[in-house]
């Protein structure tokens, strides 16, 4: 999957969880949970949706690499490569 497609998927899933947040206003290098106002349950649902859609193993031990929008995007790209 191309970078653009992964980014679109990530934005779509975040939009589903946080429909009130405008992607335009988000700091992509800022704390993902702060930027989207999501809690640990939302984050788990995000990981669940992404790992299913991309067929990826996203272990809990890797959560540290998913701290910001950009980090998460880079992580997904590297994993899908």
């Amino acid at each position: 999957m191309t970078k653009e497609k992964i980014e679109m998927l990530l934005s779509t899933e975040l939009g589903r969880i946080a429909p009130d947040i405008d992607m335009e206003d988000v700091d992509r290098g800022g704390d993902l949970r702060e930027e989207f106002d999501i809690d640990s349950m939302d984050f788990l649902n995000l990981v669940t949706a992404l790992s299913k859609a991309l067929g990826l193993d996203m272990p809990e031990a890797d959560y540290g690499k998913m701290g910001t929008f950009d980090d998460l995007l880079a992580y997904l790209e590297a994993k899908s490569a």
Partner: protein
Amino acid sequence: MSAFVMPSLGADMEAGTLVEWRKKPGEDLRHGDILAVVETQKGAIEIEVFEDGLLEGYLADIGEKVPVGTPIAVIRHEGEEPGSGMPDLTPSDARPSLEADETASQAGIPAPPPPTPTVAPVPKSAKALHSGAKDRLKVSPAARRLADAAQLDLTMLIGSGPDGAIVLADVTAQIAERKRVPAQTAGISAASPDGDTDKMAGMRTAIAAAMQRSKREIPHYYLAHVADITAAEFFVADKNNGREPVDRILLGAVLMKAVASALKKYPEFNGHHTEAGFSPSKAVHLGVAINIRGGGLVAPAIHNAETRDIDSLMARMRDLVARVRAGRFRGSELSDPTITVSSLGDRGVETMFGVIYPPQVAIIGIGTPVERPFAKDGAVFARRTVNLTLSADHRVSDGHRGALFLSKIARLIEQPETL
């Protein structure tokens, strides 16, 4: 035949607007079927039936705003002839709290068991006291005159005079109470459930009504304790290792399990306090406070939490959160959890003291986990901890038992493998 009434979906609900019938007259009904969808201040709620039978007919129309306790449909039971023996459909004239109790049992929520003598002597309800004894009511002449003038049903009252006689003061108190209730209703109906802004205003009004009642009626006391969650976090990481995301658990599920388990030995924190006194509940219907994006919160119940393991609690929490976010939850989940847990999650502050949601008698607050120096066995370690709090009803329990209960929860959290 029986009447299906608008259920009470929480102490703050006065009425619901019927938006959709899910069953047609003549259709079979099974325990747990969704009969209708009702719009409340908390959003659209699916109303379930808790008996088997056949839908005989509707008693309310789509769009109609129906007060709690009012019949909205007639259910025919097996073996009954169509139209035979219509139930007495006169709305109950009981006071709101009594009404709520009746509704709860009608809706199939396991009603809290009758109070045991060990808890406290409980006054009989006005209805039980006077049932079938209308003629023998003891009423002072002044009280009877005022009651007649105000069209007040004397059988609703508990007399405070000699031999339980109803005196003037009882009647004036009841009239004052009756004035208070419509005023509240008016405030709520001002916020119609149209549009997001109104919905939000409705939610705020509902929270305000419940919290005002709580602070007016419930003498809260507050306790706080620190629990070491280092072991619990390892426990969660260990369980999740190798699991698909869909099967993973959160620390919150371990904390819920600890609360449900600790309640076994501390029944005075699990149940409802009504005008008839405190009724402990055998089952733990664990209310989980879930915040709603954009404002407000609801605290629907995980039913029979004491019988579930951590994975099952996690699955129920996930399902509840998903449905709250989507604005779809069932009436039985909203009506009357027996205790509530409110957790700030990862992004919050260290300590939270909750306000009890009536008619419950306790709420557990869980702060944001923090690492801090923690002394143990004569040495200081960096440990992950959470601050736990208990807000409890002093009419029902005392600080001594509350402290034992809260420290029991902490001990269970610190030994997650025993849960």
